[in-house]
């Protein structure tokens, strides 16, 4: 790491608080208001321009000093996977559907927060005594689950919750030395990084920060944000699964996707984007020159906002950089502080040295 980086290696109390507030907010796809308010409060004083668009993306422009060299769009999505209450059952239980990629096996027995006011509830499960051997081999169907909010009459539940309200896992943020434990690190981590990067204007760079909506249900917000912003180049800041766990048979794990502690995960290809080769080179060169650890995320499926952005208009050179985190899309994900900080440093350094030559294929 170059000594002149303005990005501190340890997170400040402010940034830890920001990340805590972000991960504890309720913001399923399409209902990102609470997250947007937290972001807006942090970035409004830094912004040259700030607005919320037709879908709820928060678009923030910060112009660096000097003659403009590049317009760089950085995108981080505010939404998280979760549940939407769709009806109230006869006993006052809330029936729900999943919004985004949530494994049904992760749901039973979890506490949840419902709506902006974080009304508490629990997803109950059948007592094991009353299950059959056959039942225990099957995943409980989401249609048969319900959220219990402590009422037993339909009318009582209807007085508290309107169908259409979002719900998320009730997980409080914790920092345990170098480890962060929270729900929704995907992608409140990216949101926190982007908010922090707005504090550091870079000479010649117009930073177009897009805090996007509805990524988890099809990269929908990023598409219109990119169409509006018309950037020269785009980087999606996201959180990617670290599957760096042992395999059941003790064989080498060849499908780890990314590993904790190995630094920011730079994308060559995922299910939605083949990274711009010039940007891939630039990010790798930047990391190596500055001595920032990095890893190439294993090519494979999945997708980030870059998948929508790079196909906008005539095409926008794009790449993704993610903080690796274990167990994303569950109640509790785990990331390392070091990967977080190194990601902020890498993206900042890459923007500082980026010129048009990075956009050559």
């Amino acid at each position, binding site marked *: 790491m170059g000594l002149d980086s303005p990005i501190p290696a340890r997170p400040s109390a402010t940034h830890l608080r920001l990340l805590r507030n972000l991960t504890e907010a309720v913001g399923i796809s399409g209902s990102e208001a609470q997250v947007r308010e937290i972001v807006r409060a942090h970035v409004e004083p830094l912004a040259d321009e700030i607005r919320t668009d037709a879908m709820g993306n928060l678009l923030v422009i910060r112009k660096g000093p000097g003659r403009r060299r590049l317009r760089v769009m950085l995108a981080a999505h505010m939404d998280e996977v979760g549940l939407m209450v769709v009806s109230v059952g006869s006993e006052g239980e809330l029936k729900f559907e999943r919004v985004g990629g949530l494994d049904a096996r992760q749901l039973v027995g979890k506490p949840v927060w419902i709506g902006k006011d974080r009304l508490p509830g629990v997803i109950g499960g059948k007592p094991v005594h009353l299950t059959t051997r056959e039942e225990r081999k099957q995943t409980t169907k989401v249609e048969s689950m319900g959220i219990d909010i402590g009422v037993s009459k339909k009318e009582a539940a209807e007085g508290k919750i309107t169908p259409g309200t979002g719900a998320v896992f009730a997980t409080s943020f914790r920092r345990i030395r170098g480890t962060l434990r929270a729900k929704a690190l995907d992608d409140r981590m990216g949101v926190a990084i982007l908010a922090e990067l707005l504090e550091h204007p870079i000479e010649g760079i117009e930073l177009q920060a897009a805090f996007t909506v509805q990524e988890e249900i099809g990269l929908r917000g990023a598409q219109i944000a990119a169409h509006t912003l018309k950037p020269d180049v785009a980087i999606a800041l996201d959180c990617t699964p670290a599957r760096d766990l042992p395999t059941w048979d003790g064989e*080498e794990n*060849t*499908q*780890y996707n990314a590993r904790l502690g190995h630094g920011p995960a730079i994308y*060559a*290809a995922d299910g*939605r984007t*083949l990274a711009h*080769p010039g940007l*891939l080179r630039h990010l790798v060169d930047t990391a190596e020159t500055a001595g920032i650890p990095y890893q*190439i995320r*294993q*090519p*494979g*499926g999945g997708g980030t906002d870059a998948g929508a952005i*790079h*196909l*906008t*208009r*005539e*095409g*926008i*050179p794009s790449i993704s950089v993610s903080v690796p985190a274990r167990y994303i899309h569950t109640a509790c994900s785990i990331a390392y502080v070091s990967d977080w900080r190194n990601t902020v440093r890498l993206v900042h350094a890459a923007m500082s040295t980026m010129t048009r030559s990075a*956009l050559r*294929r």
Partner: protein
Amino acid sequence: MQELIQRLVEAFGPSGKEDQVRDIVRGEIEPYVDEISVSPLGGLHAIVNPGGGTKIMVAAHMDEIGVIISHVDGNGFARFHKIGGVFPQTLVGHRVRFEGDVTGVIGAEASVEIGDAPKLAEAFIDFGASSVAECPVRVGDLGAFTRPFVKLGNRYVAKSLDDRVGVAVAIEAAKRLRNSPNEVQFAFTTQEEVGLRGARTSAYGLDPDVGIALDVTRTGDTPKGIKMAIELGGGPAIKVRDSGSLSDPRVVDLMVRRAEAAHIPYQLEVLQAGTTDATAIQLTRAGVPVGVISIPCRYIHTPSEMVDAGDVENSVKLLVEILKAPVTLDRE
């Protein structure tokens, strides 16, 4: 044309690394067009008669299916992910090539029963290396299948005839056309096999009035084959619909009428699984009426795709017939 097709199919060009193919195309077509440029996603746009008449985008994709390295283990074996629609039964024993003249062979774990196709995660590439240091590829490197071109009777057999044969048809049409009363926008697109990506951004940039994709289609003429009324040697297929695009009826009519007027054999195509660049083009901006000229092709997405030389020639003729006279959808 055979020589051109051979050069194109033997070139290396998995989605995202189409440079080699683009260089061949540029060398061939540049003398015959008025403007030429490269798009942000690497597509080549070659324009005939810019500013004149109806803007017709003619799209053929340069990329082919392939692989991308995801992991190199301690003994120098590489794991990989697929690029585009790679079938598991085309893996074991096949060879893949990477930039810098690197070749590897695909093997599978012993847990895969003999005779079964491995899952992608059960296959690996052997580069003849025995350590990470010796392995000539790194995570993120793109590769493509390799197989020499052969001619069997009146048929061409090769990998990546999908869609280099479409590329060849476009180049040959440009050569014969010389000029057009329309603005003809030849778009040699990228990343079709991973989701019609290059066509989408090219169409946005070119803003055509009409879009025509050139691509291969499946046939129903092999033993106990799919139920489909398309055969090799029956002439170019004029697509009515596939699983992604609805050809504009006016474009279909135009193609049929020009084929009939010039006595070019043709077949009408309804494809139930698969699609082309036309799907991306039709959704661009205020919408674009699209059509497709398909070259019938057997064994698509295997290293031995097969097309009929007569179909290729007739596809060129049909495309030239369409482009050489003014195209006005409303009046025709």
